[in-house]
């Protein structure tokens, strides 16, 4: 793993990202803009799951409306994030906030999979419920907590 990162670090591509005056800020703007959309769209779905907003609309309708935004912007955020990482891979892996951030993204993914394949069974019974059952509300709350933590860790990387 370390060898791979050392090799990435030594490439001309990484060097270009490191020394350019504008590439890093440009990637950062794109990364942050994409993350804002990820968070904004997920927050809406999670707050609905938790029963706080849009109680007059079904959960599946809100999800269908928002999830294309979430996935498209998550793909872009990941792409620009990887490019930012490639510039200084050895530095980032040594920042604890970076490692915790990656771990939190994995946990958010696990939470989503559990919701999708376990909790969501029987969605017909609570899809239109203004306040969904407690396990659904917990899934929404956890998701929002994970994603806000990812956001905070990401921002903290710039402060150490």
């Amino acid at each position: 793993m370390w060898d791979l990162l050392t090799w990435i670090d030594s490439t001309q591509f990484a060097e270009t990202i490191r020394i350019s005056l504008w590439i890093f800020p440009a990637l950062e703007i794109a990364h942050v803009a994409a993350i804002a959309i990820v968070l904004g769209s997920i927050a809406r779905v999670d707050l609905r799951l938790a029963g706080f907003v849009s109680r007059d609309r079904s959960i599946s309708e809100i999800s269908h409306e928002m999830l294309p935004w979430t996935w498209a912007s998550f793909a872009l955020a990941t792409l620009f994030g990887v490019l930012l990482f490639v510039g200084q891979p050895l530095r980032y892996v040594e920042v604890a906030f970076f490692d915790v951030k990656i771990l939190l993204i994995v946990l958010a993914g696990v939470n989503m999979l559990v919701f999708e394949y376990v909790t969501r069974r029987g969605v017909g019974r609570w899809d239109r419920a203004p306040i969904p059952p407690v396990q659904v509300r917990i899934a929404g709350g956890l998701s929002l907590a994970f994603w806000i933590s990812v956001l905070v860790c990401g921002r903290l990387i710039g402060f150490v």
Partner: protein
Amino acid sequence: MLQEISDWLSHSQLNAIFSDTTRLETWLIIPLSQSLHILGIGILMIAIAVLNLQLLGIRVTRFSFAENSARWMPWIWTALAILLVTGLVQIIAEPTREIMNYTFRIKMIMLAIVLALTVTYRRQVKKDPNYWSGARKNLAFSLASLSLFLWLGIIAAGRLVAYVGGIETF
């Protein structure tokens, strides 16, 4: 005048607290407020995108523009409240970095224009649900394109404050 406001904030009690990096809880104020600021931008961007894309002719939801503008307004105002509070925290913590920066000033001007446009959409459609269709379709298209363009500019400017536009102060 902006210089005086910046100087006054620099010497304020709150500035001393917000910019104290020797204690963990105060060191966390800026990254936490920036994170909440990004969350606010995300909520706002979704609302703005849904409304402006609809004016461009791209429908994201099954609702009409009049219904959508009514539905999204509370999200817009809530997001703006979050952005105002977290933005003010950052200005008080680092007044020179923000107020004495051309990029930040351009961002505020773009923000004022976009908010005026958004309020105008809502006001007109409240009086007449079909205001932005028919003869005004082209006007709506132009204004929506401008809005979306300015929103991207606002986000870019927000991040660029950290890099360019600083005004030399003594």
